[in-house]
């Protein structure tokens, strides 16, 4: 199922279930305090990612996109909900299933698609590809291809953000940190407390780097939240076959002095309600966090995955709880009436408005593909030896001198 079809209304829970869930008659949850427009934007963000990924798959099948390509469909609520809980200038770093992170952080679909097409106007000038989405203006410090390697970078980003706040704020004449995404030529204003979001798949739980990073984060008090996008599989290996304590991953974090939480990643509103206060605490206390965020990918691990390790019924079971459908149902249900997942309807989105949104998104992504088609390929003579050194000097290569090429289109 995709957002291309109008959502079906899931079965309403009984009022008894709602009372047990504490959603009726108690104080409002964080998401209930948000304006309708915000929730509609969340829905749009998720729908954009899904439509984008459908076009990505089509382009991959036409061999317009090369290399490894990992599709985010099914996991959209994860990035939309967690990003909504932090500030735009909080640093974010992730693994290689990163198209959703790029789009949800604000990268244009053009730059994201052009990157996969290996074009000059891609976010990394066509030098990174699907697995390496970097967006400095949007504080996305990369998708990273080696499983778990980004967990140490997340610790470092959090370290630097804390250092900025704790050390540089007190250092006379300290410069603006040039990598933080801010224009460095502006005068320095005191840095505030930040929290870094570092995403990883459940497969990364078994990498040494992850454990070293959690230890460092716990030890040094680094404001980084490790968000495990637990889709149940590291490639074709189910989590039970790959990691110990799969049923209770927060115990892994507890071993490093980090109080972790489990979150249902398919219900955007409850995800936000649980994650928002957690992220606020990590920021305020400048402490690390760990989230076992249970989600599911509808597609294979990568585009070349025949998916023999799971049944169609299992995929279907998750699709019935589709995060886009669920949020759409809440927004479209009559205001104040019990909707789905214990949430009350918002009555703020008509079927017609929903369909208009679908049409807009389709057109937006179509134009992104067209942009990617038309963007020039990087020329080897001009771009092969660029961006290797920030300070190129003679003698660095025995073949050719390095130089600077064209400025990245995002900067």
């Amino acid at each position, binding site marked *: 199922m995709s957002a291309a079809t109008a959502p079906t209304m899931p079965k309403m829970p009984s009022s008894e279930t709602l009372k047990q869930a504490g959603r009726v008659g108690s104080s409002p949850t964080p998401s209930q305090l948000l304006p309708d427009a915000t929730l509609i934007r969340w829905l749009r963000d998720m729908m954009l990612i899904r439509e984008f990924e459908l076009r990505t798959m089509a382009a991959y099948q036409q061999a317009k996109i090369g290399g490894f390509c990992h599709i985010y469909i099914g996991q959209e609520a994860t990035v939309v909900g967690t990003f909504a809980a932090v500030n735009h200038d909080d640093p974010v*770093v992730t693994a290689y299933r990163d198209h959703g992170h790029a789009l949800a952080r604000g990268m244009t679909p*053009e730059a994201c698609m052009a990157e996969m097409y290996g074009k000059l106007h*891609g*976010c*990394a000038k066509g030098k*990174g590809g699907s697995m*390496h989405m*970097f967006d*400095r203006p949007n504080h996305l*410090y*990369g998708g990273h291809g080696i499983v778990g*390697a980004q*967990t*140490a*970078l997340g*610790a*470092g*980003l959090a*370290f*630097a953000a804390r*250092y*900025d706040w704790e*050390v*540089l704020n007190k*250092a006379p*004449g*300290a410069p*603006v*940190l*040039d*990598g933080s995404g801010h224009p*460095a030529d502006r005068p320095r204003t005191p840095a505030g407390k930040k929290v870094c979001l570092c995403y990883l798949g459940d497969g990364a739980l078994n990498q040494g*780097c992850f454990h*070293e*990073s959690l*230890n*460092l984060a716990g030890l*040094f008090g680094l404001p980084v939240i490790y968000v495990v996008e637990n889709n149940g599989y590291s490639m074709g290996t189910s989590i039970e076959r790959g990691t110990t304590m799969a049923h209770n991953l927060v115990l892994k974090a507890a071993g490093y002095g980090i109080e972790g939480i489990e979150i249902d990643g398919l219900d955007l509103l409850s995800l936000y309600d649980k994650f928002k206060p957690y992220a606020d605490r990590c920021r305020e206390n400048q402490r690390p966090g760990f989230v076992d965020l249970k989600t599911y990918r509808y597609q294979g691990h990568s585009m070349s995955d025949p998916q023999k390790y799971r049944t169609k019924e299992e995929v279907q079971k998750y699709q019935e709880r589709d995060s886009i459908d669920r949020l759409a149902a809440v927004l479209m249900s009559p205001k104040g009436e019990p909707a789905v997942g214990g949430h009350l309807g918002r009555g703020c989105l008509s079927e017609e408005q929903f369909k208009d949104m679908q049409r807009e998104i389709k057109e937006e992504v179509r*134009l992104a593909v*067209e*942009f990617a088609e038309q*963007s020039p390929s990087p020329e080897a003579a001009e771009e092969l030896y*660029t*961006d*290797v*050194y*920030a*300070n190129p*000097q*003679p*003698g*660095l290569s025995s073949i050719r001198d390095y130089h*600077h*090429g*064209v*400025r*990245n*289109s*995002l*900067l």
Partner: protein
Amino acid sequence: MTTAPSIPTLPIIDSPIHPALTNVSLPSFVDEHELPSREGSRVIQFREALREAMSEEMRRDPRIFLMGEEVAQYNGAYKVSQGMLDEFGPQRIIDSPISENGFAGLGIGAAMYGLRPIIEFMSWSFSLVAADQILNNAPKMLYMSGGQWGCPIVFRGNNGAGGQLGSTHSWCVEALYSNVPGLKIAIPSCPYDAKGLLKTAIRDPDPVFFLESERMLGDKAHVPEEEYYIPFGRAALRREGSDCTIVSFGRPVNFCLEAAAELANEGISVDVLDMRTVRPLDSAAIVRSIQKTGRVVVVDQCWPFASVASEVITQVVEKCFDYLDHQPLRVNTDDVPTPYAKTLEQEYLPHKRKIIEAVRSAVGKA
């Protein structure tokens, strides 16, 4: 339907330093003969020269911090950072657990954000467990991000046989790591250069691997009071001669100078070139010397197969083949894991006798 997208033209970067790195001020470099004198009475140890370099730069730039095993409370496993905790405090001089991959990666993330980390490996041998971070992330970040993020970081520590440490603790990493584009490698042979090169490494906006030697940390020499920087990619002529060129870097330069003194007694005079950085490599200086001598011996403390010596000789053949009167020769460590026994380890190194024999052979007096 909306109209077709317009494709903007992208301007060429015209700044000498890539715009991914701002707030970079490269020192103004002077020619070798304009540097403060190497002669004088301010005699300090190699380790103190390193400490002075870090401390001076840390006083200048609050973005710099030092992290590594035992660098703070223990005052440095080899006392390089002695006293730095007292001066700069625990937020800038930071003890890490034994977790090289983790803290190397932490440094890289911090460098991306805009800090200027110095990450100390107690030994470069231990950097092998951080290989993914230091080879996959640091040198490739600028390229993979299409010029959005650089990685201004210094990794430093002891390199090479420390003295009967056995094979796992005696790694020379310059051959392995210099193969990777995106990083720079500095390898000083004396206290004066150690200070000037490390200060340059810290100011440089690219990732720099700075290779020291446990066996040299106690070496003493005059290091001037005034501030100076030694540029990367410029070799120093340590001794001048006319019969043969010896090219070396790091600790073996000292073996070369011992060998050169003995060869002088036999009437053989040699140029001893100290490369100081292997990437960038000052091949122009090598060519200039060979144009004079017609002969070259490369002395390298890595294993011979695909070593820096191999690279130097390849470039020599490519750039000044016609000037050669004898095939280029190389003196590496022996091609075996580093042995423990004193006798074996002594023989394994590219020591004086091997260098003398190679030069004699090159000049036809074997």
